């Protein structure tokens, strides 16, 4: 673990900004793409490490919208500059509209071995409300195409919180599960301020699920997926055996990761830092050989221990007491004596086989309320 590093590359472009999206992505700045990629290459080149690269993750935005050659150049650069493990996990987030045979073929040929499809839903009503540019048919076809091209590690994103009935939820899960996919990420629709959605919800133009409905949906989704052979390995993520996302796990397990590109976050040698949010600034700073880092954070030992505890608790397997105590030279059960007592008594946390973890979906769905006592 000390020897590994995980790379994230942010591609901040989209065809059209989705009305609910609060990520750093831009729909009208495509003219900056080539400058942006130059800058990205610069940032990558100037990073020094002798650690071995375990994963490369192209996230967005919509990485599938840029030229495959651009992606290829990045991958080549990484191989040239760093030690890369023999079988790295290389993921690209792909918009279903891009998941055509030719595109998929070429990304496969440049070494990408995992594809994360932004399907979101198999129901047209939901896709329309979300303002997505694809429909249910494209959702299914994108998976089919990826399978046909030969991807065996496909992840699908699904979103919920739009007044789904139980049979609609079942329909979503079955639609995904009819294909041989290995990973599903589920997202609770959250209506963030400063998004177009926020206004629409406020004005009653869009109806979203109530608290109880969302909670029920979450629990139902988990039940359905578990019945279909998926493991609920992290609060929002499900995987078939051996297909957990190595890249995402690095975040929870506290491994070093380095994010390149606008707004990307990194965790290297115990320090957290992140880049500026503005594309133009990012490009300009790199051109002028200035640092792109906007926030930096060095946590005290206690704080980073607490942070690590909270992150590990997101995983179904939770915190291994012995390992944790050794790593942080602490006695975690003493540090959190009152908190653990309280939540174990209420049935929200369990301690089993030397591990502390959230006690099932009922508890994961209110994880913030629980884990906020541990930070």
């Amino acid at each position: 673990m000390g020897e590994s590093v995980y790379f994230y590359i942010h591609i901040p472009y989209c065809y059209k900004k989705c009305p609910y999206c609060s990520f750093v992505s831009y729909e009208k700045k495509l003219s900056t793409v080539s400058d942006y990629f130059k800058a990205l290459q610069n940032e990558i080149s100037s990073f020094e490490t002798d650690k071995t690269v375990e994963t490369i993750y192209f996230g967005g935005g919509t990485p599938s919208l840029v030229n495959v050659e651009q992606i290829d150049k990045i991958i080549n650069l990484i191989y040239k500059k760093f030690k890369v493990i023999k079988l790295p996990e290389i993921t690209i987030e792909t918009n279903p509209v891009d998941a055509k045979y030719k595109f998929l073929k070429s990304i496969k040929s440049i070494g990408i071995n995992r594809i994360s499809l932004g399907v979101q839903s198999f129901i047209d009503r939901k896709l329309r409300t979300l303002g997505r540019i694809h429909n249910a048919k494209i959702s299914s076809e994108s998976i089919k195409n990826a399978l046909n091209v030969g991807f065996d590690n496909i992840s699908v994103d699904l979103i919920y919180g739009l007044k789904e009935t139980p049979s609609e939820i079942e329909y979503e899960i079955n639609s995904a599960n009819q294909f041989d996919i290995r990973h599903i990420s589920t997202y609770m629709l959250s209506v963030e301020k400063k998004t177009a959605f926020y206004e629409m919800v406020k004005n009653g133009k869009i109806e979203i699920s109530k608290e109880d409905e969302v909670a029920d949906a979450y629990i139902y989704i988990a039940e359905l997926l578990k019945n279909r052979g998926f493991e609920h390995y992290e609060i929002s993520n499900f995987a078939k055996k051996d297909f957990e996302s190595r890249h995402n796990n690095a975040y929870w397990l506290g491994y070093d990761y380095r994010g390149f590109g606008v707004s990307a976050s990194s965790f290297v040698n115990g320090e957290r830092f992140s880049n500026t949010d503005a594309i133009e600034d990012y490009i300009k700073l790199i051109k002028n050989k200035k640092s792109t880092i906007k926030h930096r954070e060095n946590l005290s030992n206690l704080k980073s221990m607490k942070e690590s505890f909270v992150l590990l608790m997101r995983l179904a397997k939770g915190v291994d007491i012995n390992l944790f105590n050794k790593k942080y030279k602490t006695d975690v059960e003493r540090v959190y004596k009152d908190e653990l007592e309280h939540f174990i008594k209420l049935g929200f946390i369990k301690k089993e086989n030397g591990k502390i973890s959230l006690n099932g979906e009922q508890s994961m769905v209110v994880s913030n309320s629980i884990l906020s006592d541990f930070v």
Partner: protein
Amino acid sequence: MDTKHIRNFSIIAHIDHGKSTIADRIIENTGGLSKREMKEQVLDSLDVERKHGITVKAQTVRIEYTHNNEKYYLNMIDTPGHVDFGYEVSRSLSACEGCLLVVDATQGVEAQTIANAYLAIEHNLEIIPVINKIDLPSADIEKTKHEIEDAIGIDTSSALKVSAKQNIGIDTILEAIVKRIPYPKGNDTARLKALVVDSWYDNYRGVVFAVRIFEGSLKRGDKIKIMSNGKVFEVEELGVYTPKQKIIEKLDVGSVGYVIANVKNIKDALIGDTITLENNPSEEAFEGFKKPKPFVYAGIYPTDTDKYEDLKEALGKLQLNDASLTIEPEKSDSLGFGFRCGFLGVLSMNITKERIEDEFNLDVVATSPSVVYRIEKTNSEVIDIYNPSLLPEPQKISGIYEPFVIVEIITPSEFVGNILRLLQDKRGNQKNMTYISQDRVLIKYSIPLSEVITDFYDKLKSLSKGYASFDYNFEGFKKSDLTKLVVMINSKEVDSFSMIVPKEKAYRMARDVLKTLKKYIPKQLFEVRLQAKINGKIIAKEQIGALRKDVLAKCYGGDITRKRKLLEKQKKGKKRMKQIGSVAVSKEAFIKLIEANNS
């Protein structure tokens, strides 16, 4: 300076009629502070005073004023206007020969105008009526004059018309002070007799007294004797505020100033004490002041139970400068160790709480205020209880008495109907009703104090569109039909939510209290049941469903910092709650238990 060139006066008025602003102008016009040093209500130096724009503590300033080429020292005391601080006004007046009675020309005479004017009459002071805010278009000088004459009975033919804001007529005030207020009597060579009109604790200098010299004079180095206990101290420093602190060598007869004499314990010389000289003592002391009696009581507890000692220290320090604050340690099942404190009123309670939080950086929970109840037990023992949860078992009680006050309300006549209904609802008895002008009425009622300290003021204001004002004075204890209302959270009694309520209103109050609680208890990870009972019988219920979900937002690109910050924010929110058993309750719940429900 001989006494003919000294004047001592207070500025009194209803709250917000402009006392402190007039004081500002007087200081500014006589050069006490330069324009650069001035700020609004410059004498309101406490943080709470500046924050709320009200005066809490009386402040004395010596003004130098030249009239007809003669120099005068005018000792000016700016007083608070709020009903809770009547005691502060009364003390200030005993240091004076005259006062400015300020009346806002847009509001007319209000309840504290009358109350404070009567205090001045009691003290035999020369009263100079000052009609303020004449710059405002709605000012009605003639009407205001009539009201002063009718409601207080003082002549207004020579009332002064001023605007403190626009600095109009301030010179006429200064002139009137010299011409109309008598100079202090007293003999410079007589035996020293000085009245302690105020005292406070200064962290560096020990106790500082504000004194008024009635006979004799006081110099640095004099050995003074405190007449109540015979203790002797040596005067280290004498001075006045101009309002800058100015050290002087001697306090002459008739003047007002401060004394520092290496007194470490404020109890050694209480407000109202008489100071004389050790080697040539005066024969008799002043009568002193009646110790102000707290009207309302509330529990104050540290939110973090480990901070008990810190709270004790903070309260102790505040008590040094607030003679009316009483403190008794107490223990609550729900809140742990804390103090039952007595206050002059709800405003002074809130101010004390704020000062603890701001000046001592302590987070505290205050319980809903209550009055003292006098309990006659079946074994004919009589006890006073300051905490409703301590009410004895009903079968041991033969009678409960509660304090009544006489309220005086001044209101435009159009609201009289509303206000009488409110007073009836508050279990009041009418005493008197008179017109103080064609369209303004003075209403007098006898009403239980407990009804006044809850939402009375808010309701009065809303029923009268803000126009009614009120004042109250203790009347006596009267027997009432009362019972204890107990609140339970998840079947556990919460002692700090107990209250004593009139039987006739118990049902309504029980429902209101639970509704209020529901508002201040956020959803928890489990269901919360609220119940209210009297005499063992449940009379109201509410339920707060369990929290079902948090936002499980996408953890995007490994932005852990953002994730952690969200959790930290949530944690901070929880810290502001008080844990009762396993239920987190917002701290407001305790104090707002009896909120202004629009019932």
